[in-house]
Each structure stands twice: as structure tokens, then as C-alpha cells.
């Protein structure tokens, strides 16, 4: 199982992130490197890619917020 996190070098400020949109639904099969979510920190938006192949599980819904370093989804090997 891999955690989906915002890369540390992108998260410079001490603010929460918000999930702008999920490009794949909870339970979808994703491939490593595919853009799976759009995340915004202080008005700057980032594309987040799947860290590995497998089944995506959302931990935070669209429009939900999460803290620096927190995994907001996981990808479980099938």
C-alpha cells in the first residue's frame, strides 16, 4: 500500500491543503504516474500523481482539507 501525499518540496507554507477535484473515483484502478487529483495550497494548484499501480482509496473527499505531510489517499496493490 502506498500513501498519496503532496511532495514535501511543493508544500512550503504552514497552511492546510484542499482537494480541488478527484480525477478518479474512490475504488478506481490507477497506474503509477497518472494524475489522480488536483490539490490547492494557498491558491496555488498542483497535480498529484499516483505513486504506484493499484486501487485508489480516497481518505479526504473533494473540497476536504488536510495537513502538511498527511496522506490524503492510498493506492493498494490489487
Amino acid at each position: 500500500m502506498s500513501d498519496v501525499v503532496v511532495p514535501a518540496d511543493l508544500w512550503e507554507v504552514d497552511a492546510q491543503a484542499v482537494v480541488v477535484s478527484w480525477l478518479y473515483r474512490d475504488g478506481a484502478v490507477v497506474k503509477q504516474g497518472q494524475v489522480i487529483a488536483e490539490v490547492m495550497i494557498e491558491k496555488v494548484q498542483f497535480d498529484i500523481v499516483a505513486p504506484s499501480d493499484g486501487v485508489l482509496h480516497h481518505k479526504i473527499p473533494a473540497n476536504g482539507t488536510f495537513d502538511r505531510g498527511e496522506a490524503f489517499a492510498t493506492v493498494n496493490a490489487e
Partner: protein
Amino acid sequence: MSSERTLTLARAGREAVIWEMENNPEVFMIGQDIVGTGGVFRTAEGLAKRFGRDRIVESPISETGVIGLATGAAMAGMRPLVEMAYIDFIGVCFNALANFAAKTHYMSGGQYSVPMVLIAGTGGGYSNAAQHSQCLYSLLAHMPGMKIVVPSNAYDAKGLMHSAIRDDNPVVFLYAKAVAGLGFLGKPHPRAMMAVPEEPYVVPFGKARISREGSDITLVGLGYTSVLALDAADLLMQDDISAEVVDLRSLVPLDRESICASVAKTGRLVVADEDYGSYGVSAEVLAAVAEKIPSALRAPARRVTFPDISIPFARQMEYHVLPSAQTIADAARAVVRGGA
């Protein structure tokens, strides 16, 4: 479980741009802030890195110069995409666009084509005030020689972008900001996001889409108001009113046949437009009905539009007058109940 990916409208349009740029070396993009920030509305995100600065060209604040450059380049065989973040500034280059770009094909007797696309964001709802929140649909649609499209969802955005880039004369492609799916403008509207095929496809110009079938009243919308009309239709179901929603998608050419076919079926009409009310899209829709099927209307039609005022900055003031699902549903109920 399905592996369909859901795209925002902005991403879907960009996907079409990327495919066209990869497959046609004549396609290039020019605009302000497109290299560093990828464009205010992310139209060009990641493209400078991918295609280089010869094809993603950062321009100064010189709209007239850019439209002139694009017109000349298009006449010489290139296919430029002009990224103009806010349609509000079309006034700066209106002569170059309407008199050069749009009329060259005709005035040259067909000897020149001008295959350019003008990409711009329209609309407000996020306190960007009077000079950065306008739609100006009627200003553009009034001028001959340009096609104008306003997708309301991700699927139409990608297909219309492919059509726009492949068209051999000027096309204005407008992103309704409220439905583009950009985080900093607020939560993306779920109706604008949907599964989009990975391979390229075209959506034709001049064809409206019936996004919801109904029998009691026709709601016509464009861009943001097309999505609001669907929300309004849900509200109207609670009053047992079955609304049919027509998403215009294309302003020029305008699908008058689909508008009239729907009104002929339902007999009632509400037009919703985020642009200023008078002298615009809503009037053109009413004119089509009045000219072709005047006796089809069982009650006077209504329009729900932004009023003829400068757009306020204060959020409460802006939202007080911006069309909403509620105001569209209220107008529909009034029409159905026969109120004047």
C-alpha cells in the same frame, strides 16, 4: 471498478491543445503569463516545459500586437492559439480581431484563411469586479466572420477545442470561469466535471445539446447558466414541473432549430444568461422563437440575466444579481403559473 478519469473543463480543453500541438507543428500559443504561470486560468500549464518557448510564446501586455501577430501568422500557414485570460480586454484589440482576423477570409475573396483560436475566460462570481468578470458574449457574437463556442462541461470543452483548432478561420473559445474547475475560483461545479475519452474527438459547431429532457418548460442556458439551469430543473421537479434544458454550446453558429424544436414541444421558455441582459444572447433566443414559432408560446417568455450594471466587487452585491438556480427556477414557476 471503472477506471474512467473525470476531468475538469479546464483540463479537458488543455488535453485537446496538447494533442493538437503534438500532432501539428503549425500550432503554437501566445499570450500573457503563459510561460511562468501557465496562464491565469491554467490553459497553458506545463506546456512551455513540454513544447519549448518557440511554441509557447510569452507576450507583453499588447493585445492588439498579439492579435495582429496571430492574424499574420495564420495567413502565412500557422495555427496560432491566442490566450487572452480575461475576455474583458477584448476592447483593446477589437479592431484587430473583428476587422482584420474575422474579415480577411471574406475580403480576400477566400484567398487567405485565418485559422486562429482566441481562448479567453468569461464570467464572475468570485469578486473580481467590473473589469474582470464580464461575459461580453453579445459583443463578439454580433460581429461576422468568427465562430464562438462556450462549453459548459469537460466533454464538450475537449471536443470543441479540437474543432476550434482544426477550423480554418477564427474561432473564439470561451471558458466560463465558474465551471472551469479551477480551485482558486471556488469548489468546481460537479456538473461540469465528467469522464472524458482519452483519444481525440470533435464536437460540431452550431449544435445545441439537450442536457435534460422535459415537457413543461424549456430552460436555455450557455456556459455557467447551462449548469445552473440543470440545478434549477432539479428544484422544479419538487413542484412537479418537468423542465427541458437546452445547452447552447455554440453561439455562432446558433442552433435556432433546436431552440425552436424544444419550445414548440413545451410551449414555455426561460433564457438564462450570465452576460448583461439587454441587447444580447437572451434577446437572440427570444427573437428566434418570435420569428419562427410565435404561436407556440403559451405564456410570455422570461429572461434571467445579469442586470445592465457594472459588476459589483462586494460578494453580497454580486451574488444578489448573478443568475442562480433559484432565480431561474423562480422565473420558470412564474411562467408555468401564468404570472406576468
